[in-house]
């Protein structure tokens, strides 16, 4: 479980996040939604330690990720898998080497054991025959799947997905969504997903955190979100294809 308490972040004079309080649960897909520029990505970057918040706490199983020492932070980071919006695969490495990378860096497995794990992860994301291809030789959807395979290679406890289906066609997008849902439930991972895709939200989301211009507007279940009387939520849902 991850808890966020009174989180604030500004860039210069611009307040990007104001007093955010939220909880993300294990074994569930926790979707953070909001319009472009609402602060979703900054919140995710704060949570994984890429951006330092001005004030507030980010608690991983009760331990404040900002205040803890370097060693403990590193241990928590090894339990984090992240799927980036642009996949962020290492261009100079093949698909197999990309998935193997965290194993090589952090595990004590032998080469054979690592290869077995890599093949398992690639099978899990239905990419059996792409081991020797480079990222430049595969499609956007395949890159996302390799990104997921790399993220789950070390059996993470926390999976962060930054707009996992942006730029994908509806069929591939659904494949990626279902894959994230399956993995989350199968391994009891705390998944936090940034999205502004309502279809993704209603298809695979368990909890919703709605951010509007840097403020937390709603936190709760999908049903509560659907039935919320908030005019901002109504507007957001009304503008999307899936209306109530």
């Amino acid at each position: 479980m991850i808890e966020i308490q009174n989180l604030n972040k500004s860039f210069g004079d611009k307040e990007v996040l104001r007093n955010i309080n939220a909880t993300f649960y294990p074994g569930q897909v926790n979707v953070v939604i909001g319009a472009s520029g609402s602060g979703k990505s900054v919140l995710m970057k704060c949570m994984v330690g890429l951006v330092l918040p001005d004030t507030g706490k980010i608690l991983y199983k009760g331990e404040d990720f900002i205040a803890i020492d370097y060693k403990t932070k590193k241990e928590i980071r090894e339990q984090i898998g992240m799927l980036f919006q642009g996949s962020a695969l290492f261009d100079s490495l093949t698909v197999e080497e990309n998935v193997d990378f965290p194993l090589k860096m952090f595990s004590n497995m032998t080469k054979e054991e690592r290869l077995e794990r890599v093949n398992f992860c690639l099978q899990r994301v239905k990419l059996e025959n792409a081991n020797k291809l480079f990222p430049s030789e595969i499609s956007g959807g395949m890159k996302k799947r390799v990104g997921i395979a790399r993220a789950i290679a070390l059996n993470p406890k926390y999976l962060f997905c930054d707009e996992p289906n942006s730029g994908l066609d509806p069929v591939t997008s659904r494949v990626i969504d279902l894959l994230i849902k399956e993995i989350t439930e199968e391994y009891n991972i705390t998944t936090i997903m940034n999205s502004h895709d309502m279809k993704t939200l209603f298809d695979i989301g368990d909890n919703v955190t709605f951010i509007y211009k840097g403020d937390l507007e709603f936190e709760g279940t999908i049903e509560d979100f659907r039935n919320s009387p908030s005019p901002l939520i109504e507007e957001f849902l009304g503008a999307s294809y899936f209306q109530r």
Partner: protein
Amino acid sequence: MLLFYNFGRYLLFLASMFSKPEKIGIYISRTFNEMVSIGINSLPIVAIIALFSGGVSTIQTSYQLIASWISKTIIGSIVSDTVILEFAPTITCLVLAGKIGSSIASEIGTMKVSEQIDALEVMGINSTGYLALPKIIAGVIMIPMLIIIAMFLGIWGGMMAGVATGILPAELFMEGARGSFKTFNVMFALIKATSFGFIITSISCFQGYFTEGGALEVGKSSTNAVVYSSVMILCADYVIAQLFL
């Protein structure tokens, strides 16, 4: 103020590289790969520069020494000293700043804008240590080696140009070169080469690492890496000469 800000950031960047590596073997292997990329892959361009600068140096020295009472061995002496003291370390490193510097800055810059560096950080890897340190170590080791090769080829190129154009026979050239040879000059050139190797790789890594934006900014970082490295090489060249000569 911006100069001090960037210099401070550069020092912090260098300091951030030193943390306990996750797996030392991976860092050693990366350093060897970078040594091949920086050293072996630069050998052709270094050889071409050295041969031609040595050759041109012989022809121009001979053109300026027209008095018949000046011994022709002086050409070998001047050319070998010039090659060892200046042409091999400085001119070669200025060209290497263009070749290696732009390559490093664009590689790291592209990794930055495509979130690959963020991916390393999220995994808990010290990205500066993982990306920059092997390149800097490789540069500091391999550039002096390239400069030693450039010295040999520069002097040889000078001798061959003298023979080919009929300016002086090889024996006279080598007699002059041997006569003026000082071990200190080679040491001085290697001190310069080591410093220039550090300047080229560290500045280029720094420029690449702090790239923000997209393809346009990667290009700008690459250009800045070459410009700043070249300027710093010339400044360091002056300072080292002042200190040691």
